[in-house]
């Protein structure tokens, strides 16, 4: 039985579902653009700057070294803030969907729940763009020595999100203490997941992706991580030693090794992170399926697209070490597939809310 009153006009649940899906889509589009246009050129520029710094060591120019490292720092900040923007937008989208899920069990009045949803979404909308702007705003006009205005706004956005989550937790605790939700019986509308084949497919697929991601992460932490960390410092020692000895040919070889090491770390962590994140996304989307008002075959197509993209992206990212930019391009296509699937599901949710609103209007007239 589908409880069609769950995404009522202006309900907290509707705001959180639609807001959450939009945040995830925005974060993923940003991530795809970053991966296609910024990631690899940025890595190459960092490599070149490191070579220039090593060259400055060989000709004994410490001031030049500092200049090149400021350049490296600037490019790392550029990369880091963009990755952070991508990650935070998506994670906040996930959190929004989760909070939508538990709304039937938040024992607060409708207005309070709506306010909490608005507070959450305000923080979620402020935070990622503020993180993005950290690189461009810097410390301009900042009252602090190390934190700029963009950071301040990002932290403020985060604080609003935390306060909203604490409010939701308080509502949940009241429900558990009193045993009742808000105006209606807190029946498990999660039972709709049980009756919906598409939902079960997403739920099972998502959990399997999480398991695979955790096993992969555990393997990396147990077998590779320490080696990578000690190798990084050893390689840096080798670079400065050879540069000081004016052996630029060996420096170039060592820098190549350093670059490969960083690439290996980056693709392994990216593969681990992405398969886990897509696993979480699949599980969350399982609960959204009852509200996707599309024909069954289209619901299935979007699900297959989503699951396909979710597996193609992390596997292709990991294979970038072997197959280079071709694997990178395939990974970007995988990401695009997931974005398109999310748009399809969002369209279904908007259609469902439109149907609810039209039915409500008819009742009034």
């Amino acid at each position, binding site marked *: 039985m589908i409880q069609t009153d769950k995404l009522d006009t202006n309900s907290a649940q509707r705001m959180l579902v639609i807001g959450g899906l939009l945040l995830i889509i925005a974060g993923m589009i940003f991530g795809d653009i970053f991966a296609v246009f910024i990631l690899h050129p940025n890595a190459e520029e960092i490599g070149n700057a490191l070579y220039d710094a090593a060259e400055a060591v060989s000709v004994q120019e410490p001031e030049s070294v500092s200049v090149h*490292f400021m350049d490296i720092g600037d490019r790392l900040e550029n990369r880091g803030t963009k990755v952070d923007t991508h990650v935070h937008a998506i994670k906040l989208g996930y959190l929004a969907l989760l909070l939508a899920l*538990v709304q039937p069990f938040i024992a607060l009045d409708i207005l309070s729940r709506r306010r909490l949803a608005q507070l959450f979404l305000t923080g979620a909308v402020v935070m990622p763009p503020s993180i993005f702007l950290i690189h461009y705003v810097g410390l301009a006009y900042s009252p602090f020595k*190390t934190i700029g205005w963009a950071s301040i706004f990002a932290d403020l956005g985060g604080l609003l999100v935390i306060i909203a989550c604490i409010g939701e937790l308080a509502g949940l*605790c009241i429900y558990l203490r009193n045993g009742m939700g808000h105006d209606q019986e807190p029946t*498990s509308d999660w039972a709709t997941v049980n009756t919906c084949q598409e939902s079960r497919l997403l739920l099972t697929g998502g959990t399997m992706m*999480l398991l695979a991601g955790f096993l992969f992460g555990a393997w990396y932490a147990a077998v590779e991580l320490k080696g990578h960390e000690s190798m990084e410092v050893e390689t840096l020692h080798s670079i400065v030693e050879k540069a*000081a000895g004016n052996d630029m040919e060996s420096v170039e070889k060592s820098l190549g090794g350093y670059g490969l090491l960083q690439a290996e770390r980056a693709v392994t962590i990216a593969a681990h992170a992405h398969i886990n994140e897509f696993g979480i996304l699949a599980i969350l989307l*399982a609960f959204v399926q009852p509200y996707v008002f599309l024909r069954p075959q289209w619901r299935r197509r979007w699900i297959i697209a989503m699951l396909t993209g979710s597996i193609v992206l992390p596997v292709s990212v990991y294979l970038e070490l072997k197959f280079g930019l071709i694997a990178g391009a395939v990974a970007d296509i995988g990401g695009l597939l997931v974005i398109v699937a999310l748009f399809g599901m969002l369209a279904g949710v908007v259609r469902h809310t439109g149907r609810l609103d039209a039915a409500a209007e008819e009742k009034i007239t």
Partner: protein
Amino acid sequence: MNGAQKLLIIGGLALAIIGMGYGLYYALFDEHQTLEGMGVTMATGFSMAAEEKLPEAKTTLARYGNIRFEYVREVHAHSHWISLGMVLIALGAAFNLVCFPERVRFYIAVALVSGAALFPLGVLLQTTDATILAQVFAVGGTMAVIGGLAAVVWGLLLPARH
């Protein structure tokens, strides 16, 4: 909501809040200083090499390695607490679909919640002197989460097999 679901959802929400709180504290009081420390030590190491002070250069670069070691684990704790918290909430919502008796589901929930709490804590403790405790929490927590997830997958697949 049964006991296992309550445990997963409240535990998950609590972990997400802890992760976000830690992230806020880290962003306000530690992150910028850590990133600056990494940049300064690496640049200084190279500068010292340019001044023909090779032993000092290597010591400084080793210090860069230590700061990076700390940075990676601090960010890891923040992101994993939140991610695992979200996994717990999502699984909690669908936990009735896991085809095991209620008691077994409760034990799975305990494994998942404790693993999700302890694993990032263990990783964070690697930056302190409590290395044995860090190892116990990190390894034990990982195994608990993996075991719990494997049990959930099995429980979800059981109706399909029968």
